[in-house]
C-alpha cells in the first residue's frame, strides 16, 4: 500500500534529498514530501506538533532537544551525514593557505571573513572552534562577518563582499564563484554530523523504509556527489 511521507529536512540538503526521494518513490511507490527550512525552525515546529514523519537536522543540538523531549521514535536516530569545513576565497587564483602556519591573519589583512553566526548556527560554531583551535580566532574575531546561515556566508564571498569565508565543503563544491584555499583538519572542530530520526508515533513501515533507504549505496552516492561525507566510511 502506498503511503505519503512528510520529511522535515535542513534546507542545505535539498538537492541531494530531492534526488534520493525520487529514487525511493520509484522503488517503493510511496510519496515523499519535504519541508526545507533551518534546523531550529523545523525542530520547534516538531515540538509544536508538526505532522512530520522524519527529521533530518544539520544541528545535533536541536536533535538532542527533541530526543530529550521524547519526540523522536526510540532507536531511530542515526548520524546520516558528515561534512568538511573549508576556507574559501573570492579570488579564483588565490594561493592555498597553510592554516597551521598561522599566516592566515596576515592574508586576511583588513578584509572580512564571512561565517555563519558563530554562536548560533552550527557552521559558524564549528568554524569558530576550528579557528580557536588553530590559534587564529583571537586575532581575527573583529573581522568576522556573521551571516544568518552558511549559504549567506557563501554569498558574501562569491559576491566579493568578503575575500574569505568559512563554509561546509558541500557548499564550496557547488559554487563556481569561490575557490577552496584550505580544508580545516577534522580534529580542529567537533565532528560535523547531520542526525536523522523518525518522529515519535510516526514509525510506520513506509517511514522506516525511507530511513533505511537513506543509508543505501545509491543514496550515499548522491550525498557524496553533493559534497557530503558519509560517517563510518
Amino acid at each position: 500500500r502506498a503511503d505519503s511521507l512528510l520529511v522535515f529536512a535542513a534546507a542545505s540538503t535539498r538537492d541531494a534529498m530531492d534526488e534520493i526521494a525520487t529514487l525511493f518513490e520509484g522503488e517503493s511507490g510511496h510519496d515523499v514530501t519535504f519541508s526545507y527550512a533551518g534546523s531550529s525552525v523545523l525542530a520547534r515546529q516538531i515540538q509544536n506538533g508538526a505532522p512530520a514523519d522524519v527529521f533530518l537536522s544539520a544541528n545535533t543540538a536541536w536533535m538532542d532537544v527533541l530526543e530529550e523531549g521524547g519526540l523522536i521514535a526510540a532507536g531511530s536516530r542515526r548520524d546520516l551525514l558528515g561534512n568538511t569545513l573549508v576556507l574559501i576565497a573570492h579570488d579564483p587564483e588565490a594561493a592555498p593557505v597553510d592554516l597551521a602556519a598561522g599566516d592566515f591573519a596576515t592574508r586576511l589583512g583588513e578584509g572580512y571573513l564571512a561565517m555563519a553566526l558563530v554562536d548560533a548556527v552550527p557552521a559558524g560554531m564549528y568554524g569558530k572552534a576550528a579557528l580557536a583551535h588553530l590559534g587564529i580566532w583571537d586575532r581575527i574575531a573583529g573581522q568576522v562577518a556573521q551571516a544568518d546561515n552558511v549559504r549567506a556566508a557563501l554569498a558574501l564571498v562569491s559576491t566579493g563582499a568578503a575575500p574569505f569565508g568559512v563554509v561546509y565543503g558541500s557548499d564550496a563544491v557547488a559554487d563556481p564563484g569561490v575557490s577552496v584555499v584550505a580544508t580545516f583538519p577534522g580534529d580542529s572542530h567537533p565532528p560535523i554530523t547531520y542526525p536523522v530520526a523518525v518522529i515519535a508515533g510516526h514509525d510506520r513501515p513506509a517511514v522506516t523504509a525511507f530511513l533505511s533507504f537513506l543509508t543505501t549505496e545509491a543514496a550515499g552516492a548522491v550525498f557524496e556527489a553533493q559534497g557530503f561525507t558519509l560517517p563510518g566510511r
Partner: protein
Amino acid sequence: MGWLGPEEWQAVALSLRVSLVATLVSLPLGVFVAHALARWRFPGHALLNGLVHLPLILPPVVTGYLLLLTFGAQGPMGRVLEALGMSIAFRWTGAALAAGIMAFPLMVRAIRLSIEAVDPRLEEAAATLGAPRARVFATVTLPLILPGVLAGAVLAFAKAMGEFGATITFVSNIPGQTQTLPSAVYAFLQVPGREDSAIRLVLVSVAIAMAALVLSELLARRMARRVAGG
C-alpha cells in the same frame, strides 16, 4: 509552461491564494479597526494601536514563533481550533493567517489615514439627513475612503506576497500546503547553484505584485477623477 516546474507553479498558485485570502479576509477587520482608531476615543485606544503595529515591529521570525506557540498543537488557540476540527497549523490557512497578520499594520495605517482625511462635516450632514452612524459610514465615509482602502489592500497583498519569515516559522515549508513563493525562493537559495531557480520565482512574484499595483493605481485614479469631477 516549461519555464517553471510543477512544484514552482504550485508555489505561485499557493502564494496567490494565501495573499488574496489574507487580504480579503482581513480587509473588513482592517477597515473596522482603522475606523475605530481614527474616529473613536475609548480606553485601550493606545493598546489597540500598539497591538496592530506589533507585527511590524517584531522580527518576522518572532511573530512566526509566537503564532506557532499560540496556534500550534500545544497552543491555547491551537487546541480550540483542533477541537473544532479547524486546525490551521501547517495548513495553507495558517500561511494566510501569518501573511494577514504581517500585512495588517500596513493595511490599517493606509485606511486610517484616509478616514482621517474625510471632512467630518460631510458625515455631520449625513447624520442630519437621518443616517445613523453605521449608515453614515457605509454611504459617506466608505465611498470617500475607497482609494485609501484600495491602497491599503494592495499594500497588504504585496506584503503578503513577499512575506517569508513569519510564514516559514509558523507553518513550515510544505509544498502544496504551505510553500509560498518566498519560502520556495528561500529553499532554492539554501542550495548551492540553484540561484537561477530562485531568480525565476522572484520575477514571477514581482510581476504579480506589479500587476496588482498598476491595477490599483488605475482604479484609484478613476475614483478620484469621479469625485473631483475632472
